[in-house]
């Protein structure tokens, strides 16, 4: 089955949205990714990825509540679509099948 292509960064963003379960919006996602991966991710990159994912139909969004910190502006809250979730699953399956075929699984390196 041909599924929509996902870049590595897009995949992480999509996963983060899935993990955050309804609380996912630009800044929160950015901070979460920073914390989890330790990468210096920038807001505009996340926005661009979110936009692409929404175009591909893997995310959907709705406007949330405004806060004072945001100057009274609303958040855009993202949730994963069924298609998005299935895509993530397929990626996971593909990877697992490869891992299973690995004859000598990697051991944690003791001396490098």
């Amino acid at each position, binding site marked *: 089955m041909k599924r929509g292509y996902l870049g590595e960064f897009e995949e992480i963003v999509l996963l983060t949205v899935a993990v955050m379960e309804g609380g996912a*919006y*630009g*800044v929160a996602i*950015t*901070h979460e990714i920073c914390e989890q991966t330790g990468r210096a991710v*920038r*807001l*505009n*990159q996340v*926005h*661009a990825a979110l*936009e*692409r994912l929404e*175009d591909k139909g893997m995310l959907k969004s709705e*406007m949330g509540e*405004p*806060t004072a*910190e*945001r*100057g009274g*502006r*609303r*958040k*855009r809250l993202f949730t994963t679509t069924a298609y998005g979730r299935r895509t993530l699953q397929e990626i996971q399956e593909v990877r697992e099948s490869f891992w299973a075929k690995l004859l000598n699984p990697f051991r944690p390196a003791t001396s490098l």
Partner: protein
Amino acid sequence: MKPPRFADRILQFFCSPDQLEEVLGDLHEEFAYQLRRGSERRARWRYWRDVLGFIKPFAMKRQKSDYSSKTVMSSDMILNYFKIAWRNLVKNRAYAFINVTGLALGIGAALLIFALVRYHYNVDRHHQKYDSIYRVTTRFVTPEGNFNIAGVPYELGKALKNDHPDIENLAMIDLYRDPLVTIPVANGPDRKFKEAHQMGAFVQPAYFKIFDYAWLAGGPAELTQPNTVVISAENAIKYFGTTQVINKIIKINATLNTRIVGVFKDYRDNTDFAYQIMASWASLPAFYGRPLNTDFDNINGDTQCFVSLNNQFTQADWDRQMLAFVKKNKPQGVKDTRFPMQPLRDIHFSTDTDGVSQGLIWSLFAIGIFLLLTASINFVNLATAQALNRSREVGVRKVLGSTQSQLFWQFIGETALLTLTATAIALLFFQFGQQLVQENLHGAFRFTFYYDVSVIGWLALIVVGVIFLSGFYPALVLAGFKPALVLAGRMTSQQLGGFSIRRSLVVTQFAISQMLIVGMIVVANQLHYIQTKDLGFRQNAILTVRLPQVPKQDAGKMEAFRHLAMAIPEVEKLSYSMSGPPQSGWVSQTMIKYDTRPDVEKFTPQQKYIDAAYVDLYGLKLVAGRNLQPADTSREVLVNEAFVKQLGIQKPAEVLGKFLHNGRDLEIVGVVKDFNQNNLRTGIAPLFMTTRTTNYFFANLQLHNGNFERVIRQLEKNYNQIYPDSYFTAQFVDEQLQENYTQEQTMAKLVNFFAGIAVLIGCLGLYGLMLFMAAQKTKEIGVRKVLGASIGNILWLFGKEFVRLIAVAFVVATPVAWWVMTHWLQDFSYKIELGPGIFGIALLATVIVAALTVGIQSIKAALMNPVKSLRSE
């Protein structure tokens, strides 16, 4: 704490409206987060970085909001404008090419001209005291008008400082040309440097308080002592290979040993006072071998006085007290001598004292404006002519809701696009032109234009000016179309109100071209006239050899040189004199008393020292009396006719045997016919000539035809034998005369160059217009040909339009050109007549140029087979 406002603005401009809320919200939240974590500065910096990260207008995918935005600057519309503009350019390649080339030529040339103008107005402006520096000059007030000399008496500085101690700084300076520098070498021959294009000077230390100099070693402090000198880094490196040359000895003009006490940084900014070797004023008596002349009558253009003033003593104070000063120090000059202060900013432009004519600069500036105007007119003409092609687009846009202002800005934007493209090309032209101008015309001056911040301002001004000049009217016409008329196809080019305006623009263009052509012809004619006019003396095959620049010539050595020179077969005659008949830049004047008249004469004649052979060698004609006796002791003098006239005497013979008094008593023995001892701009002035062996600076040699190269080589050998401490310079009189007219020649070259470009741009526009007319009339020509019109008829169809326009332009241009050129010619004592012939030639030239431009296209149109043009109907 709020995030930077301006960043938000930028984002609002670039971000699509439907995303703005969430993006801004996120950014603000992030800002607050960063603020909690770290310093404000860091948070702001990150904020800017993030905002800039969002600016990717082409990469951002936009979700269409439900309603189209109403702003003029909507990004979709801008993209659409670009697309349509590009399609139009590609469709009308020829017009686009003509427009861009014309604009690029115009802008490039105008930029070049403005660079030249800027250069002239910035000379010496880098001095901190620029506005308070003055040069004290001498003015002789004569019945014929004022005669200004840059120089003052040697003693003026001292007297001025005595009488007015409030003057902030005062420095005397004495100039000399072409220094000869000798570096003594311990064992071996001295090294000699002929500084042929440099100027040397003797200065008082205060000179360096008035003008800004940067010192690499030493300084001016020791310049109070005699036999001290400061030199430029360039010269120091040339002489010694280093700038650390303090206390080294150099010998100037083989007479003066000086110790170097300072090395100053090379002149980087444009200046009129680029003296490379400046010895102390106190060295002057040693240099001249006699004490300085304390006489207030002794005035020479190279002895100058600079002051810087402050509130204590201003130029106005001086103007009030000048007369008292003259009365006290030069009582006999109360009537006719003044010492006005000339502001530094005027020095570069004072034509009396070798400055650049401001008229020249303004006429160039005018040509610059003309250039931009012509290029813009081209644009307007072509754009309005094509307006019909775009009328349907305008109609559709209007029906779909475009406002008139939106359309107006769309077309202005297109013009801006073309203009900016042209500007990029213009900068290339500028680069070439700059090199051309530098090499051919000014040589000496440096283009500091590029390093100048105001250049951006100039460029922006030109670009914006051109955009509006060329874009405004077409945009107005296009934006004003009535959609109903246009879409019904009931719009024809005749209905475009622009037609008569287009005509008048073409007339303007022709008029400008004609004025410039008249200018070119007049300048060229006038130059030819003054260069070939009979000057009243022989010019051919006379070589002048300069004698050493020493205070007193050695009569024995001169005799020896004469002997050797006359031994060369080609040398026919030899005469020694102070200067040739034409004296450039160096005029010696003196006050005289005549006969028994008690008062000093009201006019100040020029004086010249010549020997007895001079009159014959230069072919001067005697009107009365006889030539001078060869002996120095005879105290005889020749005067010219102008001198006699100034004395108020009718018959030349009446002055014979009378005496002149100017310190010496001289008997008038002859009157020579007037000849031009200056250049033809200044004309003939009263002159007397007498013998004085010690004051001869030139040997004049009349040569037979022969190998002049060989003669000069032989003379050089002889000269070096007799004057080993000097160096040989020889020049033919006719060549020297040409040098008198460098400024005019520069003007002619510049005017021709730029006027040529202006005419070329005009032609480009004409060609474009013709191209368009031919395309418009294709069918008409077809029908006419079918009905039996001859090729001549068809050609006349195009020709009559242009002939009419040229005729109108001629009527407009002639009076203006006549007025301008009459003014220019007023500077010359000898000038050509502005006859109808010149204007006739200009008219003819315009007609020919127009005919050539229009001709090919109209012939092509006339020869077209009507079958082709009518088939599609």
